[in-house]
């Protein structure tokens, strides 16, 4: 099981370009649909929890799944699998980049990758929106937050705790 977890997250790590938000869509597909390690609801709960705990979201998810199926060792190796491809590629890039960028048009490749990544972020946004806005209460929170970032022009990290608090507060009102 530990080897399987390691390999699943190695695969996820290898394709997780563009940081945590685009990898959400990959993680959901692999864990919920392909390997059926967790349900969609558990995945969504864990993404929310990952947002209010320290560290990158993908790391939190890998650790959680690892611990769930193979205790702390599993958590360690799942996370290791997730971060290893990036680190190996960074070492390779450092040594090969000057050579590669002379020979090939890497800029074009990264631009294409950005379009691919945008698709994943769009899908993750769609997934989150459709599971988040389920009643009048959540619609009110959503509108409030949209107005807030429109006025403030930036997102404070604590917006997450704020929205969770609103989730609690509005129960009694509606």
């Amino acid at each position, binding site marked *: 099981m530990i080897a399987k977890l390691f390999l699943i997250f190695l695969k996820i790590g290898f394709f997780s370009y563009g940081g945590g938000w685009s990898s959400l869509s990959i993680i*959901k597909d692999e864990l919920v649909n392909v390997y059926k390690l967790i349900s969609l609801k558990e995945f969504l709960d864990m993404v929310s929890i990952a947002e209010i705990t320290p560290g990158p979201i993908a790391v939190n998810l890998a650790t959680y799944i690892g611990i769930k199926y193979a205790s*702390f060792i599993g958590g360690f190796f799942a996370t290791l699998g997730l971060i290893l491809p990036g680190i190996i590629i960074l070492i390779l890039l450092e040594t090969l980049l000057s050579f590669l960028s002379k020979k090939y048009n890497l800029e074009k490749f990264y631009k294409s990758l950005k379009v691919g990544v945008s698709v994943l972020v769009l899908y993750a946004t769609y997934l989150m929106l459709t599971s988040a806005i389920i009643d009048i209460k959540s619609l009110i929170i959503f509108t409030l937050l949209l107005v807030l970032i429109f006025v403030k022009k930036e997102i404070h990290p604590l917006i997450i705790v704020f929205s969770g608090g609103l989730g609690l507060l509005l129960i009694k009102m509606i």
Partner: protein
Amino acid sequence: MNKYKLFFTFLKISTLTLGGGYAMVPIIEREIIKKNVIQKDDFDILFSKAQSAPGPIAINTAFMVGMKLSGAFLGLFYVLAVFIPPFLAISLIASLIKRYADLTYVQYFLEGIRVGISVILINFLFGLIKKFKYLEFLFLLIGFLLIHLVKISSIYTLLIVTFLYFIFTLKRKNDS
């Protein structure tokens, strides 16, 4: 500034930052520049490299800071610092989740957070597609249809869209 002491800086940042890797990078940048370890320009280059590899952005950034200062070994040392706090936090929480996640109040809280994440995602998405022209939007739409309606997995959709866009723009350039 002793470069091994930076370990504790990364440990502190990773412990105190909520909201994932993208919330962490600006704080790493501020701390590193404040401590005069790396100049702003160098940090920008290093960050764009960190972004060009897959994996969590905060982990890659920590690794690249170590690479820049000394080498891969120091990079891994910093990665360990970013890794420890979330590992401990999730270890603690994993057992609690089973017991408490389905309580009504916890669910309301998590539902609220989900709305917050949606808003962050919308904001992030707009940042990504800000400079897109009609061609990119077309690929974005095709990609979304592939993933959502045709149910092709995210990894394959990423590969297909990236590859097709690459080929398509390569050809167009050659024609003109």
